[in-house]
């Protein structure tokens, strides 16, 4: 059979064959809840990092904003994840096992650990004003004091939280997700930083805002470079990211990111401009995540994204074998006989 498959090399395939144009793969059952989770997870991670940095550099407003945003994003993440299950009541089955081969299993543990830390940091943050007013006594002071270790722990887990979702998507048969695996973690990391920075830009007073601005610039740079690569490096598999709705979303993400960064730099002294920039960065992150999510989904709907790249791969692999045989391929007959799609 190899002698046949190899011959495909010699005939450039203007068309490809499929079964009545039907998809080879199942379209992911995941809904936009998961796309939204990609955003909230990243937001939580970015916010926690922001909060930890603020804590260590004594920027209370920034810290407060980061901790609050992270716990909000955490709660939203959990809700979205549970909601998207076919059997939500079995959410805890996620913690039956810890499987390194399952990014979702890893993610569940990451989220659990992170959730504990970020939650504790948030509780500490909430406890702080009460403690300052003399309530809760020693226990209250202990809780408040645990804010820093908890926040640092959350920050330590945050990079994992922000980037495992890239592995979650890549570790599938979805062509445009899988083939993007080298870039996707960077897209998500950058996007998470930018969204965290967005929170800072919105919430921080002028004197505390500088790190958020720098974080926005760095995050946006990473995200934009990586996303550009996703949109252009993958050949045919980049197509879903540049066309249709996902194409528009990613483009919007790029524009909003650029606008957000520009705004944060230019409008440094204006609270209003900063807030707009922050909102732009958050929106950008949201758009990018939805774009990446939908682009992958699109790539499962048309069999060409499965068949053509795999054919190419086969051809390359078998190239060497082919040179021996020169007989005419009988598949010429079947070339356009089964329904194809363009």
């Amino acid at each position, binding site marked *: 059979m190899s002698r046949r498959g190899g011959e495909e090399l010699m005939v450039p395939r203007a068309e490809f064959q499929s079964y009545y144009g039907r998809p080879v*793969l199942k379209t992911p059952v995941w809904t936009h809840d998961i796309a939204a989770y990609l955003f909230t997870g990243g937001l939580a991670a970015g916010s926690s990092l922001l909060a*930890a940095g603020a804590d260590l550099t004594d920027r209370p407003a920034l810290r407060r904003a980061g901790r609050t945003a992270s716990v909000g994003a955490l709660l939203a993440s959990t809700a979205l994840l549970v909601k998207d299950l*076919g059997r939500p009541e079995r959410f805890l089955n996620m913690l039956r096992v810890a499987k390194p081969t399952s990014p979702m299993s890893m993610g569940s543990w990451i989220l659990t650990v992170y959730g504990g830390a970020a939650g504790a940091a948030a509780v500490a943050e909430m406890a702080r004003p009460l403690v300052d007013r003399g309530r809760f006594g020693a226990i209250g002071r202990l809780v408040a004091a645990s804010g820093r270790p908890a926040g640092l722990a959350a920050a330590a887990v945050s990079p994992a939280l*922000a980037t495992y979702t890239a592995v979650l998507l890549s*570790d599938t048969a979805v062509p445009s997700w899988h083939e993007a695996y080298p870039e*996707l973690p960077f897209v998500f990391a950058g996007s998470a930083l930018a969204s965290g920075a967005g929170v800072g830009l919105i919430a921080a007073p002028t004197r505390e805002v500088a790190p958020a601005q*720098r974080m926005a610039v760095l995050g946006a740079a990473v995200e934009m470079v990586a996303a550009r690569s996703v949109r252009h490096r993958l050949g045919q598999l980049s197509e879903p990211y540049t066309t249709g709705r996902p194409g528009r979303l990613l483009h919007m993400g790029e524009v909003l990111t650029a606008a957000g960064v520009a705004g944060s730099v230019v409008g440094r002294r204006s609270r209003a401009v900063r807030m707009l920039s922050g909102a732009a960065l958050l929106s950008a992150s949201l758009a990018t995540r939805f774009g990446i999510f939908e682009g992958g989904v699109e790539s499962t709907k048309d069999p060409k994204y499965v068949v053509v790249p795999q054919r190419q791969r086969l051809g390359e692999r078998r190239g060497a074998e082919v040179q021996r045989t020169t007989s005419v391929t009988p598949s010429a*007959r079947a070339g356009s006989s089964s329904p194809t799609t363009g």
Partner: protein
Amino acid sequence: MTPPRKGFFTDTSVCIGCKACEVACKEWNLLPQDGMDLLGMSYDNTGSLGANTWRHVAFIEQPVRAGRPGADEAAASEPQFLGMPQATLPGAGRDGPSDMRWLMASDVCKHCTDAACLDVCPTGSLFRTEFGTVVVQQDICNGCGYCVSACPYGVIDRREGDGRAWKCTLCYDRLKGDLQPACATACPTQSIQFGDLDELRERAAGRLDQLLESGVAEARLYGHDEQDGVGGDGAFFLLLDEPEVYGLPPDPVATTRDLPDMWRRAGLAGLAMAAATVAAFAGGRR
């Protein structure tokens, strides 16, 4: 003692498209019906494998038109059909009256050696049985849907209204009772052969040789090779055309093969993230 790995060899060259496998499977496994839709895909009104369809018979009508370029060379290796090569009919868009090839093939879960669905399952619901098959434990599955996206063949799916993932179990319950899977039992022409995988592979190789010798040059095995992207299929096939013609991926790869790399890239990205944060805060203490 572990029994030898079991599997299917589906020889599509003798499939008569009776769909007994589909019905026997549904009867035994009590699967819901999958919709009353006339699909117009020859006699395939099932469409594809899914949560409610664990055997799916594909039908491909291939007119072999006389006078097509290359038809002469191809003719030697094709099944010989009688035609009317001389007659020219005044039909629309037809060079000559057609000879036909009508391919039929019963598709099923491949029970991959490197099963991505099993790898990615976060609950351990999907597991490998003592027969080397891949089965969903329905009492554990929480319907996360990861396996659906991980399968390179588009086999497993989540059932509407039930929320859990379902696919062929290779009749795990029957195997435990020393019975053959329902589909193989119902197949009248032994197109679906069940048995020890090693023996099936030998049998398939013999059948392929036989077909090639008798001039069926387009015969090829699919999923038999342990070196392929999924480490070989527990359910493999003899096909008479390219896999994609049957709706099968030509070169499937278990996505988890790249997982170490993916983690590595994620780790790098995570480090970059941490570094960026440090840089952001360390960039000037004002």
